[in-house]
């Protein structure tokens, strides 16, 4: 067996089951006597609901029940709660309208659930759902940010005047105004961050089960955080205490944020299982994913940078409209505020920043965190604005960035927008990326491309993000309704194997390998003796789940805390067994030794003594070797780096091909470089998708036009280049592993690198900005419209 400790590219433990078809995803689970639920969804963007005629559906073959919002209300089922409260500029709380599980009175977006049919087969339920007749009275819809903020716009919720959920700001407005007044120049950019549909490959699914003998409920669900679902659904929606409700998230086929939130279908199948005393299963068809999974991004912003004559950034002013959709999803309000505006310093020492954000309701699917959540929006805005400054001043894009970087001796660095960065080296990641991308050789490649009839461009993005959420007291003061700890229970079993119970769910991140690698190396046991258990509230003490690149930084740190306790206890047992002072006991490579002697006990000697002792200090020490820890991070972590894209445009078609992509990231200490590389590549692919291909499109009436994979362009293998990944790490200073997180960096750094490259390729066409996606028709139109402004000579 080769080296499998920290830093080794250990092949994944979970791969065998996935490669042989033995994964266990929610839709693979079938319970005895199971019924099937099909949701009747609104096909109207905005309408009042008159009568819902379910009589024919209820009589259809195989149908067990049809329920509507009235049935849930009669049973005291609550609405879906929001986990974060933002306050307005004047200190008043945001508007927080009710979010019923099944619509009551009105539907507010296409896909809003109205009724559920439960039958003996899925086909029977589908057939019966067609028989439900709903008397809708259509209302005008506010289908986009632009429409929703117009005077006299249709109101999504009667109590949200002007469709405003909140009007929030951060930063020192007076200082910003002074900085702008004293500036040599102001560079302004208006830009959109395109709305995306996450599209994890596994559609959401949920199976509710009710044990008629114990009265216990079990929910199997496609979730990134089963404990959070148990907490929200149990306490706020169905009023089932934790001791009667088990939530299991088995293998989950990708999440990217979209499986964080508590969704209506989870409550519906759990409630219906209790009502019908039979298991009830629901599996989304892909068109339901499009119209019911929380969407991502969707900002419209104005950004202005005040600069001096040398291009030093003096102040940044940003105004953003953020789309919330029709209801507030679990995390939605924090995304365009504390995960966005606080990131606007980026890697630059801009002394003054002021940002205003208005969150707006529209008749669209709720919008929430999608891979990166707020940080891609901040990064796109900032890195496009930096390139616009370079464009307008003529200063070299790379030199301009260097001139404004936070220097290495400035850490810890307090930004003007709340965050304090602990570590980083932005020059190192920039230099490494420039080298890997052969930036110096670019003009020769451009000349060659032009000779071949193509336009070629290069784009640089130097970005920073905040992850490892979150220091609980800090986020509590910012409106989070829960602390964001993570939990690890580690059991060293009597004969020395180890089980780790973690709240950090794995749905592609490879936790079963990385965490095993971490624990095996610290405890000195082989990796195949360490099992990682996640995703089951009946087994794991608690956990806040997987999002915000927090699993290693927060979940892994909880494991370190538990291992420290295990080793400390092991030392006491070893001291007793070897008749030595505990201060003389050392632990290394799985062995407890007495310093200066050849006496030693293995971890297995100690674990056996801990469980089945006949010689044990039982008066002073509880038997067992099983420790649980809650870890609350002291600060966010701050991964950052440099992404460089090189693209070619075919001027005849407007098609862009990404010729090369280099990502050099500072993710802190790397446990498994193979997994880090894979995470970055996957994130970059989603970022390229956002930049070039993907867009959720509603028509002006509020119909979702991009409602299937035939209409929404998912990146395919032949749309993407090979993605070169490097790491240049500085260590996080405040967690025990020095780790920062790698799950989102790819999706955060890449979109502006791509668009900056596109603008560079079109430099002779007078183009200063292009909104995403830079689709072929858009590029072709620019080329057709713009006569190249060639140099006069």
């Amino acid at each position, binding site marked *: 067996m080769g080296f499998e400790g920290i830093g080794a590219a250990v092949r994944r433990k979970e791969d065998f089951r996935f490669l042989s078809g033995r994964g266990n995803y929610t839709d693979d689970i079938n319970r005895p006597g199971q019924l099937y639920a099909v949701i009747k969804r609104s096909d109207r963007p905005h309408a009042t609901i008159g009568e819902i005629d379910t009589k024919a559906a209820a009589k259809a073959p195989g149908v067990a029940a049809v329920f509507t919002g009235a049935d849930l209300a009669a049973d005291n089922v609550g609405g879906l709660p929001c986990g974060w409260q933002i306050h307005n500029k004047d200190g008043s709380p945001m508007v927080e309208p009710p979010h019923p599980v099944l619509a009551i009175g009105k539907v507010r977006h296409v896909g809003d659930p109205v009724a559920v049919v439960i039958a003996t087969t899925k086909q029977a339920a589908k057939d019966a759902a067609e028989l439900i007749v709903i008397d809708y009275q259509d209302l005008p819809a506010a289908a986009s940010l632009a429409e929703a903020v117009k005077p006299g716009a249709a109101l999504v919720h009667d109590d949200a005047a002007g469709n405003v959920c909140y009007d929030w700001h951060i930063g020192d407005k007076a200082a910003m105004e002074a900085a702008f007044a004293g500036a040599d120049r102001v560079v302004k950019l208006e830009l959109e961050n395109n709305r995306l549909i996450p599209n994890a490959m*596994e559609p959401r699914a949920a199976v509710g089960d009710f044990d008629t003998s114990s009265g216990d409920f079990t929910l199997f669900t496609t979730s990134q955080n089963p404990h959070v679902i148990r907490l929200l659904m149990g306490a706020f929606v169905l009023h089932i205490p934790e001791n009667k409700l088990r939530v299991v998230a088995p293998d989950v086929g990708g999440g990217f944020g979209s499986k964080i939130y508590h969704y209506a279908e989870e409550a519906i199948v759990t409630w219906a299982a209790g009502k019908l005393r039979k298991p009830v299963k629901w599996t989304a068809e892909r068109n339901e994913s499009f119209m019911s999974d929380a969407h991502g991004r969707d900002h419209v912003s104005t950004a202005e940078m005040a600069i001096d004559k040398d291009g030093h950034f003096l102040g940044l002013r940003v105004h953003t409209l953020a789309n919330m959709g029709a209801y507030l999803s679990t995390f939605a309000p924090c995304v365009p505020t504390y995960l966005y505006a606080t990131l606007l310093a980026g890697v630059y020492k801009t002394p003054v920043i002021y940002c205003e954000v208005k969150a707006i309701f529209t008749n669209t699917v709720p919008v929430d965190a999608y891979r990166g959540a707020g940080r891609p929006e901040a990064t796109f805005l900032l890195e496009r604005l930096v390139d616009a400054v370079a464009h307008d001043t003529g200063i070299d894009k790379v030199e301009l960035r260097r001139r404004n970087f936070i220097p290495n001796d400035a850490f810890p660095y307090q930004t003007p927008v709340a965050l304090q960065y602990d570590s980083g080296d932005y020059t190192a990641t920039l230099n490494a990326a420039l080298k890997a991308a052969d930036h110096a050789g670019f003009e020769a490649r451009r000349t060659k491309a032009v000779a071949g009839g193509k336009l070629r461009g290069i784009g640089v993005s130097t970005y920073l993000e905040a992850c490892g959420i979150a220091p609980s007291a800090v986020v509590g003061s910012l409106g989070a309704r829960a602390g964001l700890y993570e939990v690890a229970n580690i059991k060293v079993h009597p004969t020395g194997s180890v089980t780790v119970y973690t709240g950090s769910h794995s749905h592609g991140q490879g936790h079963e390998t990385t965490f095993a690698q971490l624990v095996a190396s610290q405890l000195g046991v082989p990796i195949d003796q360490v099992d990682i258990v996640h995703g089951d509230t009946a087994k794991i003490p608690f956990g806040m789940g997987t999002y915000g690149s927090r699993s290693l930084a927060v979940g892994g740190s909880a494991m370190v805390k538990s291992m420290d306790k295990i080793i400390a206890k092991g030392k006491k047992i070893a001291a007793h067994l070897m008749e030595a002072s505990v201060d003389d006991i050392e632990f290394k490579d799985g062995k407890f030794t007495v310093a200066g002697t050849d006496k030693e006990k293995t971890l297995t000697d100690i674990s056996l003594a801990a469980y089945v002792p006949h010689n044990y200090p039982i008066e002073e020490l509880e038997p067992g070797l099983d420790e649980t820890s809650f870890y609350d991070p002291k600060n966010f972590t701050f991964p950052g780096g440099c992404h460089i894209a090189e693209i070619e445009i075919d001027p005849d078609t407007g098609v862009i091909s990404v010729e090369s992509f280099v990502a050099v990231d500072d993710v802190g200490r790397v446990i498994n470089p193979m997994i880090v590389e*894979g995470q970055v590549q*996957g994130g970059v692919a989603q970022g390229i998708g956002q930049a070039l291909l993907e867009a959720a499109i509603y028509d002006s009436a509020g119909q979702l036009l991009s409602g299937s*994979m035939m209409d929404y362009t998912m990146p395919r293998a032949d749309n993407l280049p090979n993605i070169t990944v490097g790491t240049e790490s500085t260590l996080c200073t405040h967690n025990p592993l020095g780790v920062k997180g790698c799950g989102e960096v790819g999706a955060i750094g890449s979109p502006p690198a791509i668009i900056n490259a596109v603008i560079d390729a079109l430099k002779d066409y007078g183009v200063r900005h292009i909104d995403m996606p830079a689709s072929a028709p858009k590029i072709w139109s620019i080329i057709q419209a713009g006569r190249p402004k060639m140099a006069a000579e």
Partner: protein
Amino acid sequence: MPQVTLTVNGTPHTVEVEGRTLLVELLREKLALTGTHIGCDTSQCGACVVHLDGTSVKSCTMLALQAEGCAVTTIEGLAAADGTLHPMQEMFREHHALQCGFCTPGMVMSAIDLVQSHPEGLTERQIREGLEGNLCRCTGYHNIVKAIAAAWPLMHGKAAAA
């Protein structure tokens, strides 16, 4: 209800199905072979790819009755009886070509057909174009392409390049 008789992973089955039952529903619901996945319902994602008489097909895009008399191989039927992985499975593992695992069964089945149907060799471009019918949201395809390139010499009985 009509019946269909077919062989799946070497085992003969005769199963009653509705006329509208899809092959993927037969596999998942009647035969409990849940390794084959449903990802899109519109024949775009390829999570449901199986081999039908040795050729890759999207099992969400044909009726179960159309498989009458056919030999179907699913992801569960690839590894040897002793658990030894098919070279494509082994290369997916070696090159970290899977993350959440949901697209993986369809991706592996498509990849095997792609390699088998190109005994003359495969360029990176051909591999990328050959994967047009399979979506992966996790990997960015980079490592999938590497895995398929690495499996080609193993499947065609040539030593892997050093």
